[in-house]
């Protein structure tokens, strides 16, 4: 099932190269938008001081680059999960897929995993381009730490995407909902500013999201040269949340599918 999903998405991606262009340019423009949202307001020295007061030791442009590019992974995974359901609904094939004796989780997972790999190389390239454009250098002291925290962050994002996919089965607007979900997640996860800049109540929600720990860990690994031992406080929550959201996601997909079949809303769009 996962292989079939992969092949389908591979053919779609290679048929429409405009998506590749979108994924290459999107994160670079998002970084530029984020940088000028700061420099359009105050001078760079004031910005750096504010970040240092918040405990961020690397450059603020490096902070923003990693925030936008790493989060681009999640939007890619989440959007694919939502559009997978939406596309099948539009094509009138959602009922057949849900009637087939195949794992729904494997179906959604195939979409998310392809989104991960498909986004991966473009996001990585965008990160390099943005770093060159804005003159940012990364400080890596422990490559194993970088690899571990990135893998755990991506696993947590896939699990979170699986969790949201359960809701997409029920709604008639899975595509726009997946976009709507990205907006508060990006706000709360610290993609554009340190989580410490949020009010306390919002920070409590931030620290319940895996993306927050992923960004904290990736920034420490790539901007501050953190080692594996120093990243343990970020990696442990990522592992726990991956397990929790995976279990919840599998359960939700089953429950939402049963409910959609009971209410007869699967075919409605």
């Amino acid at each position, binding site marked *: 099932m996962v292989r079939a999903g992969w092949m389908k998405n591979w053919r779609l991606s290679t048929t429409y190269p*405009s998506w590749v262009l*979108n994924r290459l340019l*999107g994160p670079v423009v998002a970084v530029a938008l984020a940088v*000028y949202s700061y420099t359009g307001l105050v001078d760079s020295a004031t910005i750096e001081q504010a970040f240092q007061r918040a405990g961020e030791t690397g450059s603020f442009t490096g902070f923003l680059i990693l925030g936008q590019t790493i989060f681009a992974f999640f939007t890619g995974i989440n959007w694919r999960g939502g559009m997978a359901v939406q596309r099948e609904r539009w094509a009138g094939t959602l009922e057949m897929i849900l009637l087939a004796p195949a794992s729904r989780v494997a179906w959604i997972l195939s979409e998310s995993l392809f989104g991960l790999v498909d986004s991966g190389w473009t996001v990585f390239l965008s990160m390099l381009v943005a770093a060159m454009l804005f003159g940012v250098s990364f400080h890596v002291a422990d490559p194993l730490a970088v690899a571990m925290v990135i893998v755990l962050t991506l696993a947590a994002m896939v699990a979170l995407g699986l969790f949201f996919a359960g809701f997409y089965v029920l709604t008639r607007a899975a595509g726009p909902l997946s*976009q*709507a979900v990205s*907006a508060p997640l*990006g*706000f709360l996860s610290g993609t*554009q500013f340190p989580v410490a800049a949020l009010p306390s109540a919002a920070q409590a929600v931030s620290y319940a999201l895996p993306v927050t720990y992923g960004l904290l860990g990736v920034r420490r690994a790539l901007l501050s040269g953190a080692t594996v031992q120093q990243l343990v406080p970020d990696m442990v929550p990522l592992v726990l949340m991956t397990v929790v959201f995976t279990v919840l996601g599998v359960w939700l997909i089953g429950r939402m599918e049963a409910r959609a079949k009971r209410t007869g809303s699967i075919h409605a769009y």
Partner: protein
Amino acid sequence: MPIDSGARSALAARGQPVALRAEALARTFRGSFRSNLTNQFRWYTFGGWMIASLFRPVFMLASAAVIAHFIAGGGVPPRFFALTGYPSYLAFVLLGMSANGLMLSSLDDGGTAIYDEENAGTWDLLALTPMNRFVWMFAKTLSGMVASLIDFALVLVVGALLFGLSFTPGGFAVAFVGLVLTLVALQGMAFLMAAAGLFWKQPYALSMMFAPLLIFLSGMMFPVEALPGWVQPLSQALPLTHGLRILREAMLRGTGLGALLPSFGMLLATGAVFMLVGYVAFTTLERRARAKGAMGRY
């Protein structure tokens, strides 16, 4: 989508007096506008598009509020004030984010104008009918823009209530004229996107790529004066940049129509250029698609 009744009139009107041809165009416009407006509101469910239309701009506004407080301690950011003279950065961003729906409509509705018909298998039939496709598409994209006025009002009201923002009442009339003209000027961009959709066949990829670019270049989140010098001409070439300037000048400073005439002029001029380029691109690419037999392909 049912074949527009204007098509039959258009066929009958060939060789007929101007009045009859005008009636055929009007019927094409009415039929396309009405059916597409109905379709727009059919999708406008609370749990779907409305949430997406509201969430993104409101959270972008919230991000702007957090950033401004984080780096400027809650006061008016000094560089922003030096560049614009506006008394409130959040009100500046709120007006920008309210226009986000208009911008997205020109990209999405323009880009999918033909794609939706290709997807439904009706584009071949529509392309064969002797109706004026320019009028048909103009009505289709205009209906999307009209629906996006709801997004504009919703974001403006919700954002103002959430963040306690207010605007200069005396500027509402000028702002309304600016808004309507911006809506018309963005039609040109919609045409260009429709042409791109004919060629690239995946309009969502293009609209997702251009949306952040337009947010960046048009000054939705920060003053365009903060952009590097070499980028500024690109910014000034966009109708949305001038539309936003009119909205902000009118609603944040109460600037009158007379003082904003140059901005209105640029708005109409850039809109006309986009319309002309979009029209030429669309007719050229449609002709090429016909020649290659690619009309119904999506």
